[in-house]
């Protein structure tokens, strides 16, 4: 093949020369080129190697359906694999390279696969490596896992950079009355008509220029159309693909903002991901030309007819010297004429025998002829042709290019996204869009109209349809009938060539041949969905835009059915690939999810806190001194709390204000324990169950006044509990007069714990009498003032088991409170403590948290049976004793010690009986810590039957993930101060 640039053709800007590199060699192109047109202008024919057989591949198309010219653009962290060279605009300095080849696309060592073809037939990987004899013997999976990395390397296309993406991406939203997809004659007519009728219109075009397939015409100029559209206030979005349609007229768009620029501006995003909410959608997405399956139909130099027209008239590139066009329809003749005018020697093989076509005889037409074999390997040497498809008498034509047109497939993809099945049209040998009740109208050649006037008429009809559906008008309209060629198309999908090792490609990118389809059928894959998955036909990133219909026709022939009976696979979004970067938008790195900090966040950091994420919250983890490790630090902190006093930020707990005359009744219904007699000025620990009797959350509720409570929840369940309370009040108990308000952000909370906590607090409150043992007994609550006239709420609540208080102030006073408490705590050699020490203290006491209350645990499992009232009914009371929840071998909360006290263990360890170490064992360890008080590691967790059953038994902790095993004994979960005397001090 000899491809070259012509002087008098094309709409490229020849004043602006761009240099680019292909496989590290430098070339020149012009502004307005795509990478594909520039490669062709430089006579580069081989641009890739195929997926399985590593056959040389060239450029098949001029658009998004490309399945051969997939290349890698850029380098280092901007390396972008599997880019279609046909849609990549050329820019100065563009670096491109071929992929799936070693050392390069011209000389690829893996090309040997081509000669091992019979081993690579449909289902090859499954059959060979996933458990077919002799590799079976129950080891199929292991063998697959061993070979997988080699296979992936051999079969993969381009590879991602593996480096962080340096570009930014944006999510954007817009609204309009009408969105028009596609700027061909139909789309433009629809947009103009709608704008004239005062609709707010967005026109979307995936190309850099508006015009659609008119850009392939030699006399087309879009400047006037552009002015018209702009004058009517239509928002034109070029380089923007409508990749998917969703419910309620939502359209997903991908706008490529800087992909065509050599030096992207760092202040603008590379791509924008748009969500457009329209009232109506008009799709004029055009149609895609199909190829024809015959032997060696993938040799570089094979192309669709329409693509060669594009290259000639848009880019000024003549794609061959001696060109054979093989077709079954009228659409090729204008191109044939123009190619011969441009200097090529053109022959048209038309499979039809009876038809009339007007030509100026500048090229030869061979009626009734079909191609059946290309001779050549890296380029086309000649084409074997035959009169009719049975191939009895043949001849050979010397040529360097073969252009194919097996008919056109309307782009019904977007409609298919909405679950609307297309219907087969026998006359035009294609699927046509069906009507839908949704506000979507298909226009132009995407509804099977082949000539321009029909397309324009359909655009105007489409807008009338939209206006009627929106209730703006009630005008009659009609769409032109599908078709528009003078002579009917004659279906031609495959020309069979019965020679061994022949390869007729259906899906170029995935190397699926007609024989693969037949083999799949022989092996019983007769549903089109199964066929697709087994052969991977249509599963490459072009999604079978060119090859699907050929595959279906083969299947139909094998099943002795018609194409519509075989069905079509459902197209799913995206229409063309969408980068992960665009999907994530700005939600990357620190912005991946919202960050919540407490009002004393900076104070904590200023005082040496190392932070940890808990849900969305940043909480102090530990406060290391000098060279302390995490472990040094938390052990010191926990010991200090037990010895003197510690201060811990507990603001992340959920806080809910419960107000109204029925508040007490409400709490009494949602908590498992009794709240009917809680006095004003007292707090109570409570457990909430779900409807099904499983524990939902625990926390405390403080009675501040007759009709007012202050509830705390766990950090993780705060939002869920709030929604739950609202649901109960708004849907089930609508007679209760109660109001709930989330006040989590309004109050800053701190725990002051340890034997010296009362002294510290005493120094911090205005009136020192309020915190005496008499005035504030265990579980007492008071509203008072910190020094400096700061209003606060104090409750004597203990999570650590020590004498302890929770103090809450309005969030604005958080830093002042911390300064005050810390200044006084230091006087008693106190410390600041974080989540790790908090965890150690609560594990020692056997207090449960989210690690234990994991949505499977009942109140009895957690050893809290005494919290379940027998004197009242409450949420979950009917269900907590049901069936399986009554079994006596349920896992019950216990404590664990290592038998050898010098040993350690981890959370997640499976607890087993000594001679039966397997499966899920008899229990599990959920939380572990070093206990400063006991001087060894301890754990909390569950074991079937609980402490009573295993008290004196030696058990084994199996930790297969860490390859560890240790001997364990089960102890009471209350590992220190079991009677709980300290907190009453």
């Amino acid at each position, binding site marked *: 093949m000899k491809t070259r640039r012509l002087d008098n053709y094309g709409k490229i800007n020849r004043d602006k020369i761009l240099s680019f590199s292909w496989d590290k060699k430098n070339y020149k192109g012009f502004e307005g080129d795509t990478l594909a047109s520039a490669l062709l202008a430089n006579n580069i024919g081989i641009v890739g190697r195929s997926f399985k057989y590593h056959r040389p591949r060239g450029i098949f198309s001029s658009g998004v359906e490309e399945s051969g010219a997939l290349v890698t653009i850029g380098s280092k962290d901007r390396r972008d694999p599997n880019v279609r060279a046909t849609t990549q605009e050329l820019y100065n300095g563009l670096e491109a390279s071929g992929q799936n080849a070693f050392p390069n696309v011209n000389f690829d060592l893996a090309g040997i696969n081509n000669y091992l073809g019979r081993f690579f037939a449909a289902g090859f990987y499954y059959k060979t490596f996933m458990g077919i004899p002799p590799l079976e013997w129950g080891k199929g999976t292991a063998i697959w896992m061993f070979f997988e990395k080699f296979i992936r390397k051999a079969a993969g296309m381009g590879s991602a950079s593996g480096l962080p993406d340096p570009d930014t991406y944006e999510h954007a939203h817009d609204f309009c009355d009408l969105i028009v997809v596609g700027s061909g004659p139909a789309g433009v007519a629809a947009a103009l008509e709608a704008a004239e009728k005062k609709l707010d219109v967005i026109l979307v075009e995936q190309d850099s220029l508006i015009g659609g397939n008119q850009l392939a015409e030699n006399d087309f100029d879009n400047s006037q159309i552009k002015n018209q559209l702009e004058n009517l206030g239509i928002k034109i979005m070029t380089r923007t693909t409508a990749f998917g349609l*969703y*419910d*309620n007229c*939502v359209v997903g768009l991908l706008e490529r903002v800087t992909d065509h620029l050599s030096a992207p501006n760092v202040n603008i995003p590379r791509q924008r991901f748009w*969500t457009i*909410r329209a009232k109506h959608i008009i799709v004029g997405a055009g149609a895609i030309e199909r190829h024809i399956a015959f032997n060696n139909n993938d040799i570089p130099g094979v192309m669709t007819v329409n693509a060669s027209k594009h290259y000639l008239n848009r880019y000024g590139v003549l794609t061959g010297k001696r060109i054979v066009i093989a077709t079954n329809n009228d659409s090729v003749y204008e191109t044939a004429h123009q190619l011969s005018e441009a200097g090529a020697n053109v022959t048209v093989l038309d499979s039809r025998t009876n038809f009339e076509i007007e030509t100026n005889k500048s090229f030869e037409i061979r009626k009734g002829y079909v191609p059946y074999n290309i001779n050549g390997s890296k380029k086309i040497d000649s084409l074997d042709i035959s009169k009719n498809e049975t191939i009895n008498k043949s001849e050979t034509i010397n040529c360097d290019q073969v252009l194919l047109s097996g008919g056109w497939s309307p782009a019904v993809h977007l409609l298919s996204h909405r679950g609307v099945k297309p219907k087969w049209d026998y006359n035009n040998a294609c699927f046509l869009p069906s009507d839908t*009740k*949704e506000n979507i109208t298909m226009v132009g050649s995407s509804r099977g109209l082949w000539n321009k006037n029909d397309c324009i008429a359909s655009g105007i009809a489409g807008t009338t349809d939209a206006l009627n559906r929106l209730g703006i008008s009630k005008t009659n309209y009609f769409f032109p009938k599908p078709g528009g060629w003078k002579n009917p198309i004659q279906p031609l999908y495959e020309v069979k060539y019965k020679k061994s090792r022949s390869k007729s490609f259906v899906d170029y990118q995935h190397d699926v041949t007609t024989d693969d389809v037949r083999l799949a059928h022989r092996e019983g894959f007769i549903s089109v969905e199964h066929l697709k998955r087994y052969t991977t036909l249509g599963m490459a990133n072009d999604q079978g835009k060119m090859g699907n219909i050929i595959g279906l026709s083969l299947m139909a022939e094998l099943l002795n059915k018609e194409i519509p009976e075989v069905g079509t696979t459902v197209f799913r979004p995206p229409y063309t690939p969408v980068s992960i970067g665009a999907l994530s938008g700005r939600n990357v790195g620190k912005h991946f999810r919202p960050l919540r900090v407490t009002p004393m966040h900076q104070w904590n950091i200023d005082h040496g806190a190392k932070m940890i994420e808990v849900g969305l919250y940043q909480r102090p983890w530990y406060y290391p001194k000098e060279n302390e490790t995490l472990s040094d630090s938390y052990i010191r902190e926990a010991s200090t709390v037990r010895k003197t006093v510690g201060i811990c930020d507990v603001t992340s707990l959920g806080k809910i204000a419960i107000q109204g005359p029925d508040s007490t009744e409400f709490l009494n*219904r949602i908590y498992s324990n009794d709240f009917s007699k809680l006095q004003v000025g007292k707090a109570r620990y409570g457990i909430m169950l779900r*409807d*099904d009797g499983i524990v939902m959350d625990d926390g405390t509720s403080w009675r501040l006044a007759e009709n007012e409570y202050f509830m705390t929840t766990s950090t993780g369940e705060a*939002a869920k509990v709030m*929604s739950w309370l*609202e*649901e109960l*009040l*708004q*849907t*089930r108990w*609508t007679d209760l007069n109660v109001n709930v308000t989330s006040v989590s952000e309004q109050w800053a909370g701190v725990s002051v714990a340890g034997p010296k906590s009362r002294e510290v607090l005493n120094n911090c409150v205005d009136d020192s009498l309020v915190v005496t043992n008499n005035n504030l007994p265990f579980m007492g609550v008071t509203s008072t003032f910190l020094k400096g006239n700061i209003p606060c709420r104090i409750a004597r609540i203990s999570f650590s088991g020590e004498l302890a208080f929770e103090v809450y102030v309005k969030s604005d006073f958080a830093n002042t409170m911390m300064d005050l408490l810390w200044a006084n705590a230091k006087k008693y050699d106190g410390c600041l403590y974080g989540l790790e020490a908090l965890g150690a203290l609560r594990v020692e006491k056997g207090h449960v948290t989210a690690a234990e209350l994991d949505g499977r645990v009942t109140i009895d499992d957690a050893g809290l049976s005494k919290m379940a009232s027998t004197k009242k*009914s*409450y*949420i979950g*009371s*009917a*269900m907590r*004793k*049901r069936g399986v929840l009554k079994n006596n071998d349920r896992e019950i909360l216990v404590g664990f010690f290592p038998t050898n006290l010098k040993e350690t263990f981890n959370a997640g360890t499976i607890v087993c009986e000594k001679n039966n170490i397997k499966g899920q064992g008899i229990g599990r360890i959920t939380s572990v810590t070093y206990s400063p008080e006991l001087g060894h590691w301890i754990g909390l967790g569950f074991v079937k039957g609980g402490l009573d059953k295993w008290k004196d038994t030696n058990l084994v902790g199996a930790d297969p993930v860490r390859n560890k095993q240790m001997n364990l004994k089960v102890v009471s979960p209350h590992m220190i101060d079991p009677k709980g005397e300290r907190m009453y001090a």
Partner: protein
Amino acid sequence: MIRINCPYCGERDHSEFSYGGDATINYPSLDASEKEWTEAIFFRKNIKGFQFETWHHSNGCRMWLVVERSTVTHEIKSVKPCHPNLQKVVENNK
């Protein structure tokens, strides 16, 4: 991409809401039998077509709503507050 017309906030994207569940269940009284509760909690119809379901405007006004939605097309026929008093307020303001 469902849009729900919240009676208080107006038409909003479904990402502002959280799905609740079947809005037609009559929850038994708290002292009802285990059998009655089992029926209420675990047995659900799998409706093809319009069903009444609850949605919580969790990132909006926090109202619980009854939404009449088609499980096939996502078409929404009606939206009203779950709480009867709020329903009355909405009716009176129409």
